[in-house]
């Protein structure tokens, strides 16, 4: 390993993270820290994947990440869309996950009732 290789790996990593949103319009990221998993993040992740498969949506990718710190509002899910501000949702359960797929991913409507607003 040297710095040059590391820089190439960085570019590769950035490209991969970019490409995900190039080929797929939406990226759903589920917080899978201890608090998230305890609050049911695994079921939520599964619900997202199931619902996306059921509906046959192709331009979405579902991923996992760690915890942001919103422990009392886990499971926390973030939806990224190319060219838009990411949308953060809290207290998500499998039913709400299905609704996010239907409304947000399907129709492009942000579901304000589930949203967590963070300061900029």
């Amino acid at each position: 390993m040297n710095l040059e290789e590391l820089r190439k790996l960085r570019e590769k990593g950035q490209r991969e993270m970019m490409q995900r949103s190039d080929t797929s319009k939406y990226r759903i990221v589920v917080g899978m820290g201890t608090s998230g998993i305890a609050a049911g993040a695994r079921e939520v992740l599964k619900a997202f994947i199931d619902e996306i498969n059921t509906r046959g949506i192709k331009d979405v990718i579902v991923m996992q990440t760690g915890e942001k710190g919103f422990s009392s509002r886990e499971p926390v899910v973030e939806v990224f869309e190319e060219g838009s501000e990411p949308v953060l949702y809290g207290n998500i359960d499998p039913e709400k996950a299905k609704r996010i797929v239907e409304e947000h991913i399907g129709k492009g409507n942000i579901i304000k009732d589930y949203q967590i607003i963070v300061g900029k």
Partner: protein
Amino acid sequence: MMNIYTYYILLNIDDVTLAEGVKEFEEIFKKKLADSEAKGKVKVLETGTPGIKGAGISMIVYPGNVHYAHLSVSDIDEIIEEHLVKGRVVSRLTIEPVAERLESSGLNPQDIKLQDRIVLSESGVIDPENITEYFAVQGYEAIGSILENKLPDIDVIEIIKNSGLKGRGGAGFPTGIKWDFTRKAAAEKKFIICNADEGEPGTFKDRLILEGNPHLVIEGMLIAGYAVGASEGYIYIRGEYDLSIRRMEKALAQAYEYNLLGKNLFGSGFSFDIKIKKGAGAYVCGEETALIESMEGKRGNPRLKPPFPGTHGLWGYPTIINNVETLANIAPIILHGAAWFRSFGTEKCPGTKVFTILGDVRYTGVVELPMGITLREIIYGFGGGIKENRSFKAVHLGGSAGAVFDESILDVPLDYDTVKEHGGMLGSGAVLVLSNTVNMRDYLENVLLFFKHESCGKCVPCRVGTARLLDMSKELIASKDKDTILSAMDKLSETMFKTSFCPLGQSLKFPVQSINRYFHDEI
């Protein structure tokens, strides 16, 4: 006795408002206030981190959380006469508070700034189980540039010293100075230990880092190892942190795969290995020498200091023990420089602090904020205020061994030094909020029960003292002479402070004496 104020005013002082003449405004405001009927009833406090931005001279009035913005000297009379004397909000000058704006739109109040994150910047953003995503955020480039550019170890330590980074585990000892002691110690072997035995009740900040960005901790350990001349590292993770352990194991395997751990890293001849050691759940093992004993396979009792672990640590070799959060700051400092780090936080305590907020607040969780933030901003901003229409009573700051304060602490800019000046400690950054439903004697008993349980029993003052204090807290229930018991508790905890072997027994005076100081009357 503390003066009882009717109103608290937070005046936003930052470079923008200073340019707009906020100091002059403040002076005239205070002068006019002193001449008005509201004299002595209003406390004006300066706050450095504005809740309002781009709104000229602005202030927040509590109670009511009224935000005034775009103020000029000509507005002062009206605010004092109408609001502070007569209690009528001057609506032509108000803007909607952040929380109100969000609540009226049916959303949750939240006023945190994610861009001020250093150690948690990627937690909850990248996939912690995929090293490529850590590469994408310049992962391992800090250690890479040190090794390829052959930066001398002393220069690395100089950068850390200049950054002003203090240990985030609790004691707040300058990290660069600690490293330098070990660098200078001549020995055939040296060790780096990452203290991930996060056991402070109500604290789980390290867990977020370990779970959310494990490679950041590994890179911090590599840099520490290079700087002090160590080639072996251990991560002492508390056994209950199952996910942290699994993620860290995965991260270590990936780092070995890319030869970012192991022999001859970056072709420099520097080698470094890291192993995980699971803790077994003893509070005292968060103390560095007890942790070392435990790692050596012995009972987790603290050792006599000096000699300090920096020169005589694991198996007697010089050993650096740093907290997870401390190590997570290292790579960003190397990448962006000491001056960048100093742009966060306060003069004496640069950088950020990760706070765990819990108790009777609407939203519990973990938040990283610059040093110098106030508890009011943490509790009423991130925490969303007190839950279920209760009111604020107390805050237990810094973990169980910290002090319990009343509302007088709320507007103090927090860093290691200011909290110490107020008779407490910032510790692990736990912010435990207690509402008016909590009985302070019950709370004290609860804290003491914890310490009695966790006292290792090695030294008499702590072993007997914790048990005796617990008994006394129970005697308070039926006693007619509470003053005598409370002053005896003060005295005993002071004796324990002077004579106990390790910080566990020494620090009991903080909760005991502060509860007596602030809540004497209700016990």
